[in-house]
């Protein structure tokens, strides 16, 4: 019965995602077109005939609305079209190149943030209002408020330039080159998750069912592991959706700073060159990623929380 409810819940949620994506595509499409300049406004001015030819080739001479619907029809088939900038590449190929890199860095950052964040938050909650608590949470506050374009150069200076322990940037799939970008990307999320965990852990530890667990004579470590941990990390689970979005945004900057050939780098390049199809491709692709991850998080939350009744889900 639970399984069945979960499936129906999933189906309803999936249908609800379509309008979200449509809105995202529409806004992105018209925003990039509103930016001054176009894909062929390069260094050298093209002769008008060639320019007209190119525009016709890429349908840029059609009215905007017509282009919009043409684009919609095209991406429904999963085709993001050719890149304007990288002449021999389709956008799909570029995404296939960049995404594994971005996903590796992002996934590792997310994992690190979850493990360290919940650990730090739990320790702070157990040492509530002690020096440990205050210092850990103070550092977390810093982690949230310092932007990654400040953190990254500091890390590079400290660990790469002076200490020489790690390479300052570049990419070859080695773990040495992953460490700094992953840490940079994970820091704000670690801090945020630590704060979330601390707050909810303190609340859970005051609940009546924790008192019951203690009255059973269970050792405190077991009380926390078995009775408090799951309810305390539920808010963290629901934060994982928004966290993905924040991480992807952060990755655009971080990939640039560390010269990582991920999707974020392509996005920046595409935006600077008015490579309409590339920018749109990355936006739509990341949109789908965020939406799907949110969906998974939502299911995970429902699965972890036995009180949720799926029949009541919207």
């Amino acid at each position, binding site marked *: 019965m639970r399984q069945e409810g979960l499936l129906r819940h999933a189906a309803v949620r999936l249908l609800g995602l379509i309008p979200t994506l449509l809105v995202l595509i529409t806004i992105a499409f018209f925003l990039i077109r509103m930016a001054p300049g176009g894909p062929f406004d390069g260094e050298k001015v093209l002769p008008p005939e060639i320019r007209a030819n190119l525009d016709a080739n890429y349908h840029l001479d059609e009215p905007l609305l017509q282009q919009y619907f043409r684009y919609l029809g095209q991406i429904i088939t999963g085709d993001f079209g050719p890149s304007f900038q990288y002449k021999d590449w389709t956008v799909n190929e570029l995404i296939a190149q960049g995404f594994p890199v971005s996903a590796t860095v992002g996934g590792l950052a997310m994992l690190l943030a979850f493990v360290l964040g919940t650990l730090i938050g739990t320790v702070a909650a157990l040492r*509530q209002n002690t020096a440990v608590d205050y210092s850990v949470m103070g550092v977390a506050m810093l982690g949230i408020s310092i932007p990654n374009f400040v953190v990254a150069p500091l890390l590079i200076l400290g660990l790469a330039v002076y200490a020489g322990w790690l390479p300052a940037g570049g990419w070859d799939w080695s773990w040495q080159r992953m460490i700094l970008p992953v840490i940079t990307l994970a820091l704000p999320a670690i801090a945020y998750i630590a704060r979330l965990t601390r707050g909810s852990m303190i609340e859970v530890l*005051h*609940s*009546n*069912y924790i*008192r*019951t*667990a*203690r*009255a*059973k*004579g*269970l*050792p*405190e470590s*077991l009380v926390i592991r*078995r*009775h408090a941990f*799951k*309810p305390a990390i539920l808010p963290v689970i629901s934060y994982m959706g928004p966290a993905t979005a924040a991480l992807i945004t952060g990755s655009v900057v971080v990939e640039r700073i560390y010269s990582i050939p991920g999707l974020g780098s392509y996005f920046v390049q595409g935006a600077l060159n008015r490579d309409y199809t590339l920018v749109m491709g990355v936006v739509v692709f990341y949109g789908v990623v965020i939406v799907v991850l949110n969906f998974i998080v939502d299911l995970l939350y429902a699965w*972890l*929380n*036995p*009180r949720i009744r799926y029949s009541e889900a919207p």
Partner: protein
Amino acid sequence: MALLEVKNLEVSFETPDGVVQAVNGMSFTLDQGETLAIVGESGAGKSQMVLAFMGLLAENGSVRGEALFHGNDLLKMKPRGLNGIRGKQIAMIFQDPMTSLNPFLTIEKQMAEVVMHHQGLRREEAKAHAVEMLRAVRIPDPEERIKQYPHEYSGGMRQRVMIAIGLLCEPELLIADEPSTALDVTVQAQITELVSELRKQTRMSLMLITHDLAAVAEVADRIIVMYAGEAVETGGVDDIFYRPQHPYTRGLLASVPRLDRASDDELQAIPGNPPNLQELPEGCRFRDRCTEAMEQCRKRPPLWVSDDGRSSRCFLPMEGGRTLQNATEPEHDE
């Protein structure tokens, strides 16, 4: 030797607006096999007194005094020692059945862990034992229901589960802290009946905590009436019901529905409210609500005791009692 001997127990809480004196100089003994009821209005300090010697006070609470269980002071025990007693020798059933079970774990997990931890049973044995216990508290179809989560149980059923958990290790002392409001009265009566019935099959001692004097008339051996953190009267159940000494006890009795009274419009709750625990009055704490208050009640009333274990704290003399000199009493005012 008494199973449990509580001496001069004091519980206070630090709060931003001052110190709350929740329990003041509570002393009593509980023998093996005895059923003791602690009765008093909401806020009298019943729950905090018990939580204090179970080591379950909130962080802002502190406790002084002694609570000797088999002669060992629970208040001086290290966590490991206390954990060996809690859930095994002393079990506690909590007030609020709706929130006292963990909503994220199945009933099976919450029951099995007790015997697995205290008696080293394996999971299968533990489960079988838990099923038997659910059957004993009359949960229908226990093999199936044990797989469910608390939200799939009604309030009364959850209270039964709490009882079953409490009885898993056959404790020497079961403390049942009853809800004042959480359950409806008939369910509550059934639960009290069930607890005392299960108790009769063992040599277990029982401590019933309630605001309802009538609810314990049938089951208690002795009763302690608490008011504003103090025991105002102690006595056997017949003494309390037929020869109440303290005006507060009489007031409580007047608000109990009885068969020998014609209609229930004679029922009267005691008018007024208990004193603020942050600024307790110097004299008798019941003075503002007492129909027999006298001038001298502005001073601290004496404690009357008798050889058969009765006591009353009042300026009115207790029949068959003698006063303890105030000088021999410990001071509570530092």
